[in-house]
């Protein structure tokens, strides 16, 4: 295994985060904190509890998940798209690195950044809202698993995209609505039965539900199903990445 190669890609991507701290870390932390201020402290104090959890605390897992998903996709897609855009991808393609090593470098760095960001957001949330973490191991496991899965998804988007618009279209037009409708601000039990059934087709429901269970021990769907769905999506992304490298789709002519 070319560990030096993996390390080179990983360090390069992490250095990019350090160069753009305001955009990579400060901006998502501030925007998520605004949700905590508005929905947690201000409006939240006037809203009733959900499943015996204060509203401000209830929305924390969903909001962390929102940032985690968006940042994982954005970091990984940008990480692989930029070398394609600038032409420096020639070096990665001509290097003695396997596709597994390329993915480890890019996705590993993207996932690391997202996990760091998720933890910072969680710590920041503590300043505005009081919350518990009943299952810290599972909370961290969900955080890491989701970061890896959606970084892989972002990596696929970055390879597929042939312009900056395409790079943005899936996170903004698909992922954001799915997160907002996936139980970030409400429990899906609160929806009419038809919409509860519809919600079960939203993969983000399982992520948020599982993540919230790790915090408060309550969930919309069984935690085992949440883990299973996340692993299934991860596997689907892995198969897609394997196919991309096998065929050279949008990488090798």
């Amino acid at each position: 295994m070319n560990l030096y190669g993996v390390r080179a890609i990983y360090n390069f991507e992490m250095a990019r985060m350090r160069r753009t701290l305001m955009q990579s870390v400060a901006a998502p932390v501030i925007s998520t904190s605004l949700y905590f201020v508005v929905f947690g402290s201000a409006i939240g104090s006037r809203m009733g509890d959900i499943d015996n959890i204060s509203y401000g605390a209830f929305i924390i897992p969903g909001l962390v998940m929102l940032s985690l998903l968006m940042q994982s996709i954005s970091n990984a897609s940008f990480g692989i798209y930029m070398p394609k855009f600038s032409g420096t991808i020639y070096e990665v393609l001509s290097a003695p690195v396997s596709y597994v090593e390329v993915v480890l470098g890019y996705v590993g760095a993207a996932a690391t950044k997202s996990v760091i960001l998720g933890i910072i957001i969680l710590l920041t949330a503590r300043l505005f809202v009081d919350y518990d973490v009943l299952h810290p191991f599972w909370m961290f496991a969900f955080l890491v698993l989701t970061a890896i899965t959606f970084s892989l998804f972002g990596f696929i988007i970055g390879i597929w995209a042939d312009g900056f618009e395409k790079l943005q279209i899936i996170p903004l037009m698909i992922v954001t609505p799915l997160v907002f409708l996936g139980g970030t601000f409400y429990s899906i039990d609160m929806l009419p039965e038809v919409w509860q059934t519809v919600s079960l087709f939203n993969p983000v429901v399982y992520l948020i539900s599982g993540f919230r269970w790790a915090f408060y021990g309550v969930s919309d769907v069984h935690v085992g199903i949440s883990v299973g769905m996340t692993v299934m999506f991860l596997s689907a992304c892995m198969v897609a990445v394997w196919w991309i490298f096998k065929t050279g789709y949008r990488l090798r002519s």
Partner: protein
Amino acid sequence: MGIIAAKAKLSKSSPVMRKYRAFIHHQQDKTVQPDISVKHLNKVYADGFRALNDINLDIKRGEIFALLGPNGAGKTTLISIICGIANISSGEVKAAGYDIVKDYRKARESIGLVPQELHTDSFETVWGAVSFSRGLFGKPPAPGHIEKVLKDLSLWDKKDNRIMSLSGGMKRRLMIAKALSHEPQILFLDEPTAGVDVELRRDMWEMVRKLRENGVTIILTTHYIEEAEEMADRIGVIRNGEIILVEDKSRLMSKLGKKELRLHLQSPLETIPGQLALEPVELSEDGYELIYTFDSQQEQAGVARLLRTLGDLDIEYRDIQTRESSLEEIFVGLVNE
């Protein structure tokens, strides 16, 4: 007892001996094998365009090989395939004795590529970019080597500068530094001196010669034919995806080159005298110059005969000039055939 045990361990069928024999076999192979071996290589793009057609090419270890061809002839496609950037449609390519598909790691470790375009990460520093390339190619950090490469390429004082602040020529040198960062055995230079001033071009030629002296095989594509003429040991010409010629440079120059003898006459001629009608002679428009063209390899009797005939005709001349055709003229002749 220890020796007996060691001998027993190193029996012919022991894994150590098998590995050793395989290693020796590979090393022996390397001495006879070319550094780059291309056999029946074809490249057809998804839209059906055939970029390379049955390419067969061997490039010897330690030589400077210039690959010449007009735009769109297939030079960059060929390089891209050998370096792993493009997929093979059919055929076989080996680099440093390793198949570029089956043994891609070993093959790519031995190759450095300086691409035609200046692809750089603008926000990275010079040092960071070169270190990244070395790591990517599986080599442990070697600050001493990177320092040497940067000094050789006059980039040492810019090592902490961001790439965006470099001039075009510096960026070109940086591309070379990145390609040399992992100490490759084979170096591809795809139009390395495009957009580079004359002085820097001369420096680069010098650097390429030094690399060759250190045993690096260099494959060069260039639009400056004088560059190939100056540096190459062998020349390959590619046209419409086919290699139409591979020849030792000096042999090519003597085989396909022309010589020209110009006689500046004392008095102008109106027409070429009948006695010279069968000779390959032309008369300049003003009638003051007789131009005699002959093959480099042709025996010199023609020149003596020409001068004798002029003497017999009392045609006096005040000056004689000779010139040989350049590689550029030969190249233009080849690709226009």
